[in-house]
């Protein structure tokens, strides 16, 4: 498994590094990674799935053996990368890599015009696939979180790939803000769960479920993460926005894989925590709202792609309702729906991409029907939409039948009946927007006022259509023979919840209540489709009072603006831009924080004068300092400060520290020169503009700083008396020659004993240098531009 992840990363990085050299061939290269994954998954199939139909003596079914791998990562933190490949992971892997491979083929047809940045899409897509497989395979909560965030980042880059399009940039930002915020909540939740359960391993959580008061809050956090990722209400606004991405990306990330990450996580955790806290209630409420809102909005879309996007939102809500209840029978329907939705939604997205590509529009008002060569596309649109609407004998029907059936039979928890009603209503809506999609493709919605382009559009090439054909065949064949996936879903369910006893997936379960309900859904849906004009008018009228309320998009915008506003206010308060204020704050901190505790240490004063030569030197220091403070010409003040520094160097020399003296001497020289450099930009004299109140304050702070340094010096010299052992300097002098190979102990300390410090310091020097140049050059560039403008522009009379 690690090898496969590594292959993904290598191929992805290689494509990214190759720039635009590969063109659309990059997608062929990118296809190698999912192909390898599928081949590997196929070899593991028998082991992982096992024989879930066979029962042991106690009447329990069991799935095959899961594969485990682990690699040491940060062993000090007890953080290793654990991977697990069980049957549910196999289901998700089929989705991720199967659709990934088809999308790669499809993209070769889609990107027929060479544009810069296309191969970047292929590279990012491969990296995304690695991250997605990481989510699915991770057996450690932290590893899962990291992979989770990586999908958010790659999704951001993929949506915003066309970086010159402001809409793409905005949509990408919106996606990463919403999923990123959810990701933070998720991290918090996962950590609480891991701590309270005593294990971060997903495979061990089922045996040691988390307990304690904080778990309920943790579950809310985890759900927040899952809801944002899977575009549940009210966080769904980013998904329709993400449709600015090229269609292969939308088909892959935003219908088949990434948005299912939330569903995946909820499915994994539900058997463990469904009855803890408010988990089930939250899932049912949010899932229901999402399913209905998504369906209603899908019925109002003119853009085929947006219609599918809102349809995806609705279906994601449906999946949440199935996998999040904790009832394993219902969860099995969810697994079937995961597969069915992956197949039909990816097909439909691909078809929309084909139409968009060949005709140049995907607005149903501008589509007026398509000619002969388009037959395969039309047939597949009907099949895909029928599967979405839940018509027999397709995979979508199998999933929906099982969902309704299991809800009828096993929905004995609070709110099950209401949820069933929501599912039925949602399915009616799904039927209605599926019909709208088909009618749109056939040009029934076409408006005579719009330019007729679709009738003359060239038919798509074979390679362009082939991936959609593969998926359509899957939808039909698996729909006709559900036994093909029966064992897979059973084993997947068993790997989610070992105590479950899964049932067989059937196309035809007899004339039961579920079938009657399905017939009712189809009938009502057909009515909605036939009377679409009155329905649309009614929907508009009914939504009128709702328009006064802020939409989720508005709420997103308001939140971002509010954060901006707060950030601006905080910055304006903290960063006033006044150098004296900054200095005042810094110096006050210096006095208050380290020095005040030292006053207690303040003890014996050392001997005042050790050496008569000190007297003239100290006289120079004191005189120059006072002079520097009083003098009004800047350059003179700088010279005074320089005099203080040189006198200090002399003081070092008399105390027998030639190295220090030398350094101080050199620094003073250079410091004065550099001071003069900067002084040219300042007025020659100090002009005090501060109000009169501030001056005594400054004076007080300055005096206090002086006193504080005095206290500091005395206290730190006396500090050694309190400690029994000898000063470290003795040891350093002793070890300088044998250990550091040098007679100059100062230098040995700098380059050897404390070499890491020096390394840090020169790094700081480097950063400071880069910063100085950037600031100075940047501001001067600006001045130059202004000068240019002033000189070239004629003054306006």
């Amino acid at each position, binding site marked *: 498994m690690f090898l496969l992840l590594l292959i993904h990363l290598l191929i992805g990085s290689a494509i990214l590094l190759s720039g635009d050299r590969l063109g659309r061939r990059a997608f062929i290269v990118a296809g190698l990674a999912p192909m390898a994954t599928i081949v590997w998954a196929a070899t593991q199939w028998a082991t992982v799935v096992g024989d879930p139909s066979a029962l042991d003596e106690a009447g329990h079914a069991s799935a095959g053996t899961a594969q485990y791998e682990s690699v040491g990562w940060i062993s000090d933190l007890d953080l290793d990368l654990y991977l697990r490949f069980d049957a549910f992971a196999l289901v998700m892997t089929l989705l991720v890599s199967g659709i990934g491979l088809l999308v790669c083929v499809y993209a070769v047809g889609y990107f027929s015009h060479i544009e810069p940045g296309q191969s970047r899409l292929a590279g990012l897509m491969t990296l995304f696939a690695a991250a997605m497989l990481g989510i699915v395979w991770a057996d450690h909560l932290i590893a899962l979180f990291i992979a989770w965030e990586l999908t958010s980042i790659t999704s951001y880059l993929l949506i915003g790939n066309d970086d010159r399009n402001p809409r793409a940039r905005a949509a990408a930002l919106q996606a990463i803000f919403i999923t990123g915020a959810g990701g933070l909540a998720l991290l918090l939740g996962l950590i609480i769960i891991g701590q309270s359960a005593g294990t971060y391993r997903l495979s061990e959580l089922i045996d040691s479920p988390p307990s304690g008061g904080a778990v309920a809050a943790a579950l809310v956090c985890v759900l927040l993460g899952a809801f944002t990722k899977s575009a549940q209400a009210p966080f769904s606004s980013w998904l329709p926005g993400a449709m600015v991405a090229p269609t292969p990306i939308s088909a892959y990330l935003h219908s088949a894989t990434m948005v299912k990450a939330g569903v995946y996580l909820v499915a994994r955790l539900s058997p463990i925590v469904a009855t803890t806290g408010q988990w089930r209630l939250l899932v049912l409420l949010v899932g229901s709202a999402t399913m209905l809102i998504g369906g209603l909005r899908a019925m109002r879309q003119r853009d085929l792609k947006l219609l599918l996007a809102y349809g995806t939102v609705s279906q994601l809500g449906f999946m949440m309702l199935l996998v999040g209840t904790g009832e394993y029978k219902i969860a099995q329907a969810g697994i079937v729906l995961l597969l069915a939705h992956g197949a039909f939604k990816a097909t439909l997205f691909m078809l929309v991409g084909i139409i968009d590509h060949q005709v140049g529009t995907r607005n149903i008002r501008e589509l007026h029907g398509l000619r002969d060569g388009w037959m395969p596309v039309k047939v597949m649109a009907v099949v895909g939409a029928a599967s979405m609407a839940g018509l027999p004998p397709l995979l979508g029907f199998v999933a929906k039948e099982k969902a309704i059936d299991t809800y009828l039979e096993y929905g004995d928890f609070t709110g099950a009946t209401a949820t069933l009603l929501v599912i039925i209503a949602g399915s009616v809506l799904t039927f209605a927007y599926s019909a709208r999609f088909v009618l749109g493709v056939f040009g029934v919605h076409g408006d005579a006022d719009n330019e007729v382009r679709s009738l003359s559009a060239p038919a798509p090439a074979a390679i362009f259509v082939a991936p959609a054909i593969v998926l359509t065949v899957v939808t039909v064949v698996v729909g006709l023979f559900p036994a093909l996936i029966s064992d897979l879903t059973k084993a997947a369910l068993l790997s989610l919840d070992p105590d479950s006893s899964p049932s067989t997936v059937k196309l035809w379960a007899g004339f039961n209540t579920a079938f009657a309900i399905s017939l009712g859904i189809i009938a009502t849906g057909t009515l909605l489709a036939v009377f679409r004009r009155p329905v649309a008018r009614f929907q508009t009228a009914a939504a009128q009072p709702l328009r006064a309320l802020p939409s989720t998009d508005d709420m997103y915008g308001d939140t971002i603006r509010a954060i901006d506003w707060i950030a601006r206010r905080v910055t304006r308060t903290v960063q006033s831009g006044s150098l004296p204020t900054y200095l005042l704050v810094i110096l006050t901190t210096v006095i208050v924080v380290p020095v005040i505790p030292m006053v207690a240490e303040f003890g014996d004063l050392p001997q005042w004068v050790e050496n008569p030569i000190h007297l003239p030197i100290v006289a120079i220091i004191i005189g120059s300092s006072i002079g520097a403070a009083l003098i009004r010409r800047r350059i003179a003040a700088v010279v005074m400060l320089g005099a203080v520094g040189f006198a200090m160097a002399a003081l070092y020399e008399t105390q027998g520290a*030639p*190295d220090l003296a*030398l*350094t101080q001497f*050199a*620094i003073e*020289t*250079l410091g004065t*020169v*550099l001071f003069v*450099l*900067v002084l*040219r*930009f300042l007025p020659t004299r100090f002009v005090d503009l501060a109000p009169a109140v501030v001056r005594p304050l400054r004076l007080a702070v300055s005096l206090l700083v002086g006193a504080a340094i005095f206290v500091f010096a005395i206290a730190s010299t006396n500090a050694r008396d309190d400690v029994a052992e000898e000063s470290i300097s003795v040891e350093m002098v002793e070890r300088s020659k044998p250990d*550091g*190979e*040098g*007679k*100059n102990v*100062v*230098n*040995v300390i*700098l*380059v*050897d004993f404390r*070499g*890491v410090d*020096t*390394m840090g310091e*020169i*790094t700081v*020097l*480097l950063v*400071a*240098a*880069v910063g*100085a*140049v950037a*600031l*100075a*050059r940047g501001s001067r560039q600006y001045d*130059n531009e202004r*000068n*240019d403008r002033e*000189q*070239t522009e004629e003054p306006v009379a």
Partner: protein
Amino acid sequence: MRRSLILDVSVRLLYPSIIVLSLYFLFSGHNQPGGGFVGGLAASAAISLRYVTGGLEAVRRSFRSEPWTILGTGLAISVGTAIFPMLLGGAILEHGTLKLHPPVLGEIKVTSALPFDVGVYLVVIGLVLMIFEAFGDDRDHEMEMIEAPTQPATSVREEYRPLSQREPASDQHAAASFWLGQDEPS
């Protein structure tokens, strides 16, 4: 900028001497007063003398590489010296000694502290060059930008190429090259 002939000539004499002194500081630092930091500061003092006589152009001409290259090379050398023992399985900054016996000079002991110090030396010089770059007086350069705003430098390299290699040459520059012409690396 008004020039003083005496200052120019004496700086010509002083500059190489101070650089040699700084190298002496660098190499003797391990056993006598000195070291990479002091050496770098001394070299920087020499550079600032050049700045006083020839302005930013003279400073730029003193080195063939750009200031940021010197800065980065220095840090790379130091960090490389620090990390190299780790690659061999030792601790960070673990030191090693090499004894050379070249003819005439007798025995020379080179410790791994020396390349580390060389890195520090280069970083200090690079920092000072960068500050000159940031705040230094490049009146010629600004003049040129004002005169020909329609032709901005197409690359960073071009922007820092000596003036004589750029076109069009200005009259002002001709006067400067009278004093400084021989220093040009071309």
